[in-house]
């Protein structure tokens, strides 16, 4: 296990180097000049050149690249071209908010999705199963933007129960609507996957054996069926959670949530190179860590994976 983790951590180095290089090249390949965002609508060429010199953009590309690599190796992601703030400071400020939203959404998606999937698979009330699956189909199909506005209209404007937008200094009241909005698609997918997992596993020989030897239904469900049905759910959680952590642009924009997503999109629109590069690098590290945790959790949930991992 330790060897496995170490190997993955060492693998981070070439992955991050690749990410830095590709991002760096992309920044210069795509059209758009970062200096144009700094000079407004009325400028002269001399100011443009002076700004380029000030930001080091007049240097040869390779020199800029090496300089950036050097700074990154010292954990310095540079300063935003637009605001002049250190990128690490901005990420440190916004990431906890994104993390709060991502964790809440994931919690809702996992608990709601597994419950809905299990209920749908439970054959006692067929109408319930059908309703759950119809709802989950709606959940997968519904656009986030529309759902967000619908929730604001219902819970804020009509029912006056929750604030329409904002962060509210971290108050949970402000978290509910964005978390529901963000979780909806994952919840629906998890419900569908859980249902099919329950149905597939329910027909396996070992479940029949467990029942035949007189094991209680709750133990059969919890210990044998649920554990096996969870493997694909963990995969979905890993993928979705990774993307939630990099910020959810639409949800954050609708609810005025000051997270990473809006921050990165603004930086892309204004060609704020240090912010784009720093944020992407940070997201890459997060993705790798989340995927590592997902891989490790496979082994915890299913001992067969652990044995196979050990053998390889």
């Amino acid at each position, binding site marked *: 296990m330790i060897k496995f983790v170490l190997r993955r951590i060492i693998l981070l180095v070439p992955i991050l180097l690749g990410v830095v290089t590709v991002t760096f090249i992309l920044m210069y390949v795509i059209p758009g*000049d970062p200096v144009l965002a700094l000079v407004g609508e009325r400028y*002269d060429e001399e*100011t443009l050149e002076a700004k380029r010199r000030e930001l080091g953009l007049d240097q040869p590309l390779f020199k800029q690249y090496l300089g950036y690599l050097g700074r990154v190796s010292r954990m310095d992601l540079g300063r935003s071209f637009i*605001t002049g703030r250190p990128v690490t400071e901005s990420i440190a400020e916004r990431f906890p908010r994104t993390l709060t939203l991502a964790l809440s959404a994931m919690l809702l998606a996992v608990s709601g999705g597994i419950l809905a999937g299990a209920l749908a698979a439970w054959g006692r009330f067929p109408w319930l199963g059908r309703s759950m699956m119809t709802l989950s189909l709606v959940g997968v199909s519904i656009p986030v933007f529309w759902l967000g*506005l619908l929730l604001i209209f219902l819970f804020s404007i009509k029912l006056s129960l929750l604030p329409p*937008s*904002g962060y509210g200094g971290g108050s949970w009241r402000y978290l509910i609507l964005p978390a529901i909005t963000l979780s909806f698609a994952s919840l629906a997918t998890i419900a569908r996957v859980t249902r099919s997992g329950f149905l597939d596993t329910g027909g396996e020989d070992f479940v029949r054996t467990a029942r035949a030897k007189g094991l209680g239904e709750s133990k059969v469900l919890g210990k044998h069926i649920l554990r096996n049905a969870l493997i694909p759910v963990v995969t979905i959680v890993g993928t979705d959670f990774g993307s939630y952590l990099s910020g959810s642009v639409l949800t954050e*924009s609708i609810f005025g949530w*000051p997270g990473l997503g809006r921050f990165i999109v603004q930086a892309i629109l*204004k060609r704020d190179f240090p912010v784009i590069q720093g944020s992407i690098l940070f997201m890459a590290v997060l993705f790798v860590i989340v995927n590592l945790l997902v891989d490790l959790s496979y082994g915890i949930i299913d001992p067969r994976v652990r044995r196979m991992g050990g053998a390889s």
Partner: protein
Amino acid sequence: MGGESLAPPPGRRSGVGGAVIDFWRSFFLLTGCLLPACTGSGDPPLLRLALQTEPATLDPVAAVDFSSGTLSSLIHSNLVRFDAAGRIVPDLAREWSISEDGRRYRFSLFPARFANGRRVTARDVVFSFRRLLDPATVSPRWWVLEPVKSAASFHAGSPFSDDSMLALDDSTLVITLEGPTAHFLSLLSMPAAGVVCAEEVRERGADYGRRPCGSGPWKLSFWHAGEEIRLEKNSHCREINASVEGISFRILPESMTRIAEFEVGNLDILEVPGAEINHWRTAAPGLLQAEELRVVYIGLNNRKPPLDDPRVRRALNLAVDVETIIARILFGAGRRSRGPVPPALLPWPTGTDLYPYDPEEARRLLSEAGFPHGFSMEIWQRENPEAGRILESVQGYLARVGIEVKIVTREWGAFKQAVDRGTPDAFYLDWFADYPDAENFLQPLFHSSNRGGGGNRSGYANSRVDSLLEEAAAQVNAGTRTRLYQRAEELIYRDAPWIFLWFPIRYEVVSERITGYRIPLIFNGRRFLEVSFSGRSDH
């Protein structure tokens, strides 16, 4: 947040929908989920506003975007400023006199104080202006002080000429210009000419943009990135608002979210988005409206065939039914433009509607120019749903006269770069006034020296227009100046470097909580000094 409310908006609907809503409301009440209706009732009264984009900085020398300029103007004082009607009024300068040759400006200052309590002196003004011009500052707005004597050479690296800006004592300042500049006071009212506290700038360095210290009526209380900027009353300022303790600017990029916040009573002023105007015309009887100092146009690349032929450009103007687009797509929120300068700044000479909707005449002009079967061209736009609808309509009109239009959409950075380089055949763009003066529309947008990033993005050049604009800028007599600008505008209108579209009308709705607010003519003309609370509450 003070005065924040979760109470229902007025005018709730009844019927089946109402019953369902009441059921859910009761459900949440019974299950204990209903949230407190109002928080922060004991907080000082705040004016609650929304910003579509977050300011990049609050440092006057670096502020180039709308949000930065607006907030920086609330925090910093200038020598003079604009009032809501766009008139020049005293700010730090109690009075001023201009020499007969129009080159020397003598300002007497009020005994004002910065937010840190220190007296503002004429030396602070010199420091601020010198900082703006200093090449080391690399301010994109240095041109605001370009008319000052030796300013351009100082900006280019020569030593500073002390006699160009002279602090005679703590409260007297003399500024000498290279030549008479009629709009110099307007330039001094721009955010870039805001006066900063010298020692705070030195102490805070690059961080000044996030921790400014000015002598304006408001000072920064806190700035929560991506969320809210709070200003509080600057008690040291000469002009303060007696009833409003602070202003909360929430950063809400989505228009529907801003509407929702206004509906639940969390915002005091809402700029009504285009698609919502009809609804608010009936829903809000007190809807405010004002013609903006902004012109919307389709710039034609005057250096690229076939658009380098004025006959073709005139034909394009004749082929588009602008009035119908205003009525159908903008819901009437615009006034058709006959020339680039808003009539509030420069009265239109009578009888100059050269481009009524006339596709027949357009076809004739195209034939005369050698394009009887039309041609194809691209019109570029930045990502914007409203612009998309407008351009599709323009595309339809131009197709009727044989011109095939391809609409090319780019995000802002790529769009701006291409337009400034003169790549597209045509582009959909607008121009906001920096200050309420015809010069601000004519000089940057049409003088040949400003082609490209200087503002003249259509690449228009007419030596007669150039000399008229130069003559007008140096003309101190207001009547003569107006006539010169009118002649220049008429020539530009005839040359049709753009497809002239409209001057937008801005709509704002104000909560019942506040009184005394009016839409200012220019963005930095509002300081929220006249706004007060009516005593009535939305909640």
